[in-house]
């Protein structure tokens, strides 16, 4: 299927099989911040924004993407830089594999609810699994980011 996708405010034409998921399409286009973890809608590693809603790209068929705005971490450089510094300063960047997906959720949370409480942060990030940190350092890092940074 030939499709025109809007990714990080750029139009990109792709030719994909009918059952290709957005995760595969994005990685084939070089958007390597989007990662494959469980591939069964559980871990949150593949989180991207579809029209500003956090979405699991491993289960989002690419054929549904035309007409929607797709955003990856590559398109959020300024926020990503600040958030990465906050996470690093709190020791929340251990193996780092889950970090990019979690950052997509945290940046979305800031836009939706910049004054989120700790409980609201936990609730919003519950779909992003991490096997290293125990989540406390991530909570501190995201809290710091919501409060404006370092």
């Amino acid at each position, binding site marked *: *299927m030939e499709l025109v996708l809007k990714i990080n405010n750029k139009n990109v034409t792709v030719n994909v099989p*009918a*059952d290709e*998921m957005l995760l595969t399409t994005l990685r084939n286009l070089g958007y390597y911040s989007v990662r494959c973890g469980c*591939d*069964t*809608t*559980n871990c*949150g590693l593949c*989180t991207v924004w*579809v029209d500003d*809603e*956090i*979405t*699991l790209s*491993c*289960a*989002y*068929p690419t*054929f*549904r993407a035309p007409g929607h705005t797709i955003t990856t971490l590559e398109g959020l450089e300024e926020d990503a830089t600040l958030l990465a510094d906050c996470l690093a300063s709190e020791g929340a960047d251990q193996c780092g594999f889950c970090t990019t997906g979690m950052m997509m*959720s945290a940046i979305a949370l800031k836009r939706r609810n910049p004054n989120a409480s700790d409980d609201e942060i936990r*609730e*919003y*990030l*519950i*779909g*992003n699994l991490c096997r290293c940190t125990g989540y406390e350092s991530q909570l501190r890092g995201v809290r710091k980011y919501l409060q404006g940074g370092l």
Partner: protein
Amino acid sequence: MLAFLKVLQPKTVEEAYELAIKNKTAPMLAGGCWLRLGRRTWPAVIDMSGLNLRYVREEDNEFVIGAMATQGDVERFEPLQTFCGGAVVRGIKEILGVQFRNMATMGGSVASKFGFSDIIPALLAVHADIVTYKGGRMSMQEYMNYREKDILVEIRIPNHEVPVAIEALRISRGDFPYLTGSIRHDDTGYKIYIGTRPGAPQLAVKASALLSEKGLAALDEAAQIASEELVFQKNSHASKEYRMEMAKAMVRRLVKEVAQ
């Protein structure tokens, strides 16, 4: 994985129905979250995203939820956050994470009639109706036994506040529940629904009748009857005996919650 060779993209519900009749093995692709857990390659799927069924609104003293509205759409719809103690939204918020709920659709969640559904007990308790293309409007309880090939169009919930309580028991947050339940207390009495037995949610008829007749004085007896009149079985999440014991405790808690 979600594998298919061809995607059929109807633009109307009528067209989707005709495609479903013509392509009997083709699954209807709503959110796709559960289809993804299968291993089969489908010759074709019917994409439901072009049918303009993604809406949540208030209309004629009812809440109307289109089949393609996501769980997230419903969760964020303010009037439902407080309706009947927020029962429907509370049922949804237990389901995995925000990303998942932004994809999983209400129609897909209801039409699948999963035994482990968090949403169906809540919809039963608020007396939701289901509207299908061919079968028309029917109660949620009727829909649970409806077996015709059809297209679920929308869910309609009467905007009528009554005491409702829901509960889902799980081993850990984010897991499937091993027992779900809901209760409604209106001027006709109590209605107790128990799901994830692991079968789909059902009305505990005898327990509900006893509680309606004798009130809280019969609470323990009603809880015992509820655990005996429905079929409980074991699966990987809980044994039959554990489910039966927990059903008693759950019924007692639900009744106390609506009584407050």
